[in-house]
């Protein structure tokens, strides 16, 4: 999602990530069941411009985290291409992959589980520095002090262990650790969903300040739409392994086109009475990604479906307005006239 003039930092082309569930030899022999694959990420196209924040929303199990992890190559994609700064990084190995990873870091969802409980803050933030090639211990110490200050912790925290911190402070440590590599691109995987409202606002503000200071690009994964609205420049809505709609934040929230986006937007509770939308309540739940429904994956819950096409043909990924992409038959002309 970029303006044509803007430089593209990351491009994802037709990315697939399938997880295989292996059946035992005996089961295969007796029942002729084949291995099952979970289609966590299924054909995703995405463009992220420099210094932008792309919000990725969707319900649990829709593949948001899988996409984030695949992009920074924590997992190998099944199919497709990841192009970072003009270079295809899909097949990188060894030292080259390491170089690439220096530029991309991740902030994890659960601040309680993503920090090693047996290491002090000095180690947690310092070890990435060692990997980056900062050899002298004194220099490392200086940088750690500096980073801690940047994320709003004080230097006296350096000798403490993760359990001595509150959730918000731990998330700050996680952010400092990511920053230690001087990355250009950060995948923030639900960084605030485990935190209380008042602390959540502190972390969001911190992420914004750091973005300005270090010219960072974010892929911000969240299920909370109001957080996404606040922080993102553009938003991609995911449903069952596919991006169903993508547009600039303002455009998406004002003119949602895909029925799923419309339902999602109407489902969030809003404090202001005037800002409330008429609630569309979707029936049923998200189908399993092991055996996704044929055609449009949303047709089982869609209030706007038409027979004969929604449940048979997969909708094309189309640009229906400038920089507003949607995958729905209603906007491709195929569902009209029925």
């Amino acid at each position, binding site marked *: 999602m970029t303006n044509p003039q803007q430089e593209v930092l990351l491009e994802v082309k037709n990315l697939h990530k399938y997880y295989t569930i292996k059946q035992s030899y005996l089961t295969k022999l007796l029942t002729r069941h084949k291995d099952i694959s979970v289609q966590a990420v299924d054909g995703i196209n995405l463009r992220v411009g420099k210094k932008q924040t792309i919000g990725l929303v969707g*319900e*649990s199990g829709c593949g948001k985290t899988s996409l984030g992890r695949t992009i920074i190559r924590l997992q190998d994609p099944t199919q497709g291409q990841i192009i970072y700064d003009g270079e295809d990084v899909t097949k990188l190995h060894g030292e080259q992959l390491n170089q690439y990873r220096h530029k991309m870091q991740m902030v994890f969802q659960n601040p309680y589980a993503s920090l090693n409980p047996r290491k002090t803050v000095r180690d947690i933030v310092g070890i990435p520095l060692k990997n980056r090639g900062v050899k002298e211990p004194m220099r490392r110490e200086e940088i750690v002090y500096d980073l801690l200050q940047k994320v709003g912790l004080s230097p006296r925290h350096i000798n403490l262990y993760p359990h001595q911190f*509150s959730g*918000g402070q731990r998330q700050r440590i996680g952010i400092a650790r990511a920053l230690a590599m001087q990355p250009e691109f950060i995948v923030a995987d639900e960084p605030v969903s485990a935190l*209380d*409202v*008042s*602390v*959540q*606002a*502190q972390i*969001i*503000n911190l992420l914004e300040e750091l973005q300005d200071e270090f010219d960072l690009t974010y892929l911000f994964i969240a*299920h909370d*739409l*109001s*957080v996404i*609205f*606040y*922080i993102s420049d553009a938003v991609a809505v995911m449903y069952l392994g596919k991006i169903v709609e993508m547009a600039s934040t*303002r455009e998406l*929230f*004002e003119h949602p086109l895909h029925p799923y986006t419309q*339902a*999602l937007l*109407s*489902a*969030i*509770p*809003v*404090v*202001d*009475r005037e*800002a*409330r939308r008429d*609630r569309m*309540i*979707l*029936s049923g*739940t*998200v189908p399993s990604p092991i055996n996704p429904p044929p055609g449009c994956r949303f047709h089982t819950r869609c209030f706007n479906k038409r027979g004969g096409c929604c449940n048979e043909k997969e909708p094309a990924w189309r640009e229906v307005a400038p920089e507003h992409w949607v995958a729905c038959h209603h906007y491709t002309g195929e569902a009209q006239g029925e």
Partner: protein
Amino acid sequence: MLEIENLSMYYDTAKKPVKAIQNVSLKLDQGEILGLVGESGCGKSAMLLTIMRLIPYPGKIKYGQIKLDGENILTKPGREMRRLRGQKISMIFQDPMTTLNPVFKVGEQVRESLRIHEMVASNSSIPFLDGARKRKEMEMVLKLMQEVGIPSEESRYHEFPHQYSGGMQQRALIALALSCRPDLLLADEPTTALDVTIQAQIMALLKQINQERGTGIILVTHDLALAAEFCHRIAVMYAGEIVEMGKTQDVIENPQHPYTDGLLHSIPKITTQKQKLLPIMGTVPDLADLPEGCSFYPRCSQAHDKCLCAVDIVELLEGHQVRCAIYQ
């Protein structure tokens, strides 16, 4: 219907008592929905457990009364209390996956509460072999499951909790809580573990139950927006105390306590105007080591000397109460 007066509940630990609930007074009318809002560790859930008298050891009620229909339930013996739970008050817990028993069929778990509360009288001389009674109970369970929106309830009755999705499990729990037609439903973050679209389904169901049956609901949540949409009245809790309480509209549109105001400014809003989040600095204090005077004082933007003295809750407008030194 429910009246709580000066309730205080402390966990007696070896060092200092953890003051989970301090001096809480509130009232709930028939058919009313009250939202109890606050951050984690502010005593919201402890409040519900106290009303149910299910406080875990070493929690003790220090002062106060809880009156249900004019009767103080704190003095009731255990047997009577067990009868009240389920028939008068019942509770929906936060995490449906851990609340249902994984080794029993969902339908049977709902039926068990009907059996315990003897909702269907037995005519047989050997009550536990009474087939007619069991059939009647099963019918009631199926009707309940239908009411809370569990599709194909006949086959769902015989399924186990792991075969249900999160939203369905929460529906089953609601069916369980409603089985004995209670007057008061305590909902402890019923939608926190669920997705937004499922949350909308469950909240619509609770609203419908409230309107059709006139069941009073106390909704505990950390989501101010959810409470603002759903509740008639809101009570904001901080460090075991109610800091502000009033009609939803008054509290949300005209917050008087700096904490409520801070919370409202911490939530990103979906508007066309440019906004900046103004978070509350610091974190929630340790309940065993509360600051002197107002517990919000160290984080407050409007703190001054008066805050160090004990602060009482005062009624500003009709039904709008605030606990803050500014208004003393």
